């Protein structure tokens, strides 16, 4: 039926030269340009909003820390950036090939499936990481004045810590890597997306709750007044260097009619040193209301020890977190390549 014939057979070699890497660039772009464009568009739009907010803040001439609630709400929204990128960009990369069966086509071409996986994942990972880092820069610029030097909100707190350029890039990269592994392991797009959201959230919560505080040895102070932006890990009571229970402290305080609701409660009271030292020392318990409880406790040898991370550790912590997230992401993507090689049709 066809008059067309194939041209003469070209030479076939025992170990052919590999197909150049750059040939995959067009393919990866062509197949994932919508996802990449979507990420850039959304992050770009939010960046414009952040830029305007930052400009207004600077023209205002003073910084209102009262914007805390607004800051928290928008920050929580921004926390969703990495997992959404992981779910919508990372998870489908391999899952869609497996779900539609096109891997049988793609993986039997001359390029080779391991190289195909690397050539697909690497540029996309780089693209989403750069996009996230750029967004993080805008965030740091825009919200920085409200975060750095804020007396109530620590820059190390989970609210905003992972939104700066280093950590946002790291968390986005790891979300993408989780997505790629979930895609090849689960082989279905939608379940892989859900798995990515769950796995990323679990990792983020565990990091914020347990891991981050151990990046550097914390500082301990017996001052009731903590430096601005300190990230409190724990507070406990001690009497003459020995730990005492809260009830013991309460018993002492009941003599002057005050109570301790919880550790840290006294930290919010006016500094102990601001009271007249002579007055409180000469008259230990003249009556309720006239004595500073903190001063009273000090007089009884009771101190509050606060373990905390100072705000100045923001950037060291940023790089520590970014570093291990990068290492974890590379491991995960290597695992994805390994799973692709192991995947039996």
């Amino acid at each position, binding site marked *: *039926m*066809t008059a*067309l*014939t*194939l*041209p*003469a*057979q*070209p030479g*076939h*070699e*025992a*170990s*052919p*030269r*590999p*197909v150049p890497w750059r*040939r*995959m660039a*067009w*393919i990866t772009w*062509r*197949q994932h340009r919508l996802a990449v464009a979507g990420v850039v568009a959304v992050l770009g739009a939010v960046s414009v909003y952040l830029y305007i907010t930052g400009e207004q803040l600077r023209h205002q001439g003073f910084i209102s820390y009262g914007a805390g609630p607004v800051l928290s709400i928008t920050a929580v929204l921004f926390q969703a950036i990495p997992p959404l990128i992981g779910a919508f960009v990372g998870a489908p990369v391999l899952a869609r090939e497996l779900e*539609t*069966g*096109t891997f*049988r*086509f*793609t*993986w*039997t*071409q*001359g*390029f*080779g*499936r391991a190289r*195909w996986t690397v050539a697909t994942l690497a540029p996309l990972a780089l693209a989403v990481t750069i996009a996230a880092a750029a967004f993080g820069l805008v965030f740091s610029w825009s919200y920085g004045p409200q975060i750095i030097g804020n007396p109530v909100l620590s820059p190390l707190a989970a609210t905003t810590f992972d939104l700066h350029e280093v950590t946002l890039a790291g968390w986005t990269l790891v979300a993408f890597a989780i997505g790629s592994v979930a895609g090849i392991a689960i082989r279905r797009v939608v379940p892989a997306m859900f798995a990515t959201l769950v796995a990323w959230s679990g990792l983020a919560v565990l990091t914020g709750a347990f891991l981050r505080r151990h990046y550097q040895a914390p500082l301990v102070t017996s001052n009731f007044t903590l430096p601005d932006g300190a990230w409190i890990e724990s507070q406990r009571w001690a009497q003459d260097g020995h730990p005492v229970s809260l009830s013991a402290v309460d018993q002492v305080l009941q003599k002057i009619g005050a109570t301790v609701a919880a550790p840290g409660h006294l930290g919010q009271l006016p500094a102990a040193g601001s009271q007249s030292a002579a007055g409180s020392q000469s008259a230990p318990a003249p009556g309720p209301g006239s004595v500073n409880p903190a001063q009273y406790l000090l007089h009884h040898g009771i101190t509050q020890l606060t373990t905390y991370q100072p705000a100045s550790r923001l950037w060291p912590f940023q790089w520590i977190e970014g570093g291990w997230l990068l290492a974890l992401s590379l491991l995960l993507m290597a695992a994805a390549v390994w799973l692709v090689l*192991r995947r*039996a*049709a």
Partner: protein
Amino acid sequence: MNVIEAAGLGKRYGSTWALRECTLAIPDGHVAALVGPNGAGKTTLLNLAVGLATPTAGTVSVLGGTRPGSPAALDGIAFVAQDAPLHANLSVADTLHLTRNLNRRFDQGYARARLDELGIPLTRKAGKLSGGQQAQLALTLALGRRPRLLVLDEPMASLDPLARHDFMATAMTAMADDGVSVVLSSHVLTELERVADYLVLMSRGSVQVAGEVDDLLASHRVLTGPAAEAGRYAERLAVVHARRGGAQAHLLVRTNGSTDPVPPGWEAHPVSLEELALAYLREPGAASLPGPVRAERTEVSP
């Protein structure tokens, strides 16, 4: 050179063996047909040969000793999987470009001319093509790579008779003009007689019969005679399958050549490929008899 060679090849998925103790050697320069019922292990064998799966047991090599999935094997083998999976959201032109970028060689001119001849528009999305057009596009992409071996998994399953004819004509042309070896799997027996000159019969995960079609046809015949005598001959002859119709018995037997005497009162007829294949498929145990499988095995080991 053997385009596909397997020794004791086995593949297990979970606790089920999809392929077991498969030993065969398909020489080059043939259109080899893998025939067998669903679940016989045809797709598994092809997946192992193109490197999509790795063996659980035994060995498999392609193109004269190359490891499946190695760069040389990927370079020399073009595979069209069942239902010709293609990226549905890419246009035909993009699909051509994609295939060209994924391979060392791709004859864009040939591919475009062939698609033009088939009336497949380059701007159409692959997912919007008909089943026959998708199969033809996949075949065009495969042939455009100028492979040494073309592997087709159930290429005719989704095609209407006309598309089947066109599809096989293309494959045959490639085979005849360019020496491309073809291995295809199918459970459509009627088409095979015209195209296949090498037959591999599979059932229940192992190879039952393998050999050149001409040899197989020459070494089998149908004996027709009185049903009452059938039992007596069945003991002396290598009967693959016996069929009784009224007083007549039809025995499909393996012979050692045409010199075998025909019993008095019996008639001998040559078999068709379809009859031969059906006879073996109806008797999955027939492979255990001495015959083509054994003979093939001795050929494999030099």
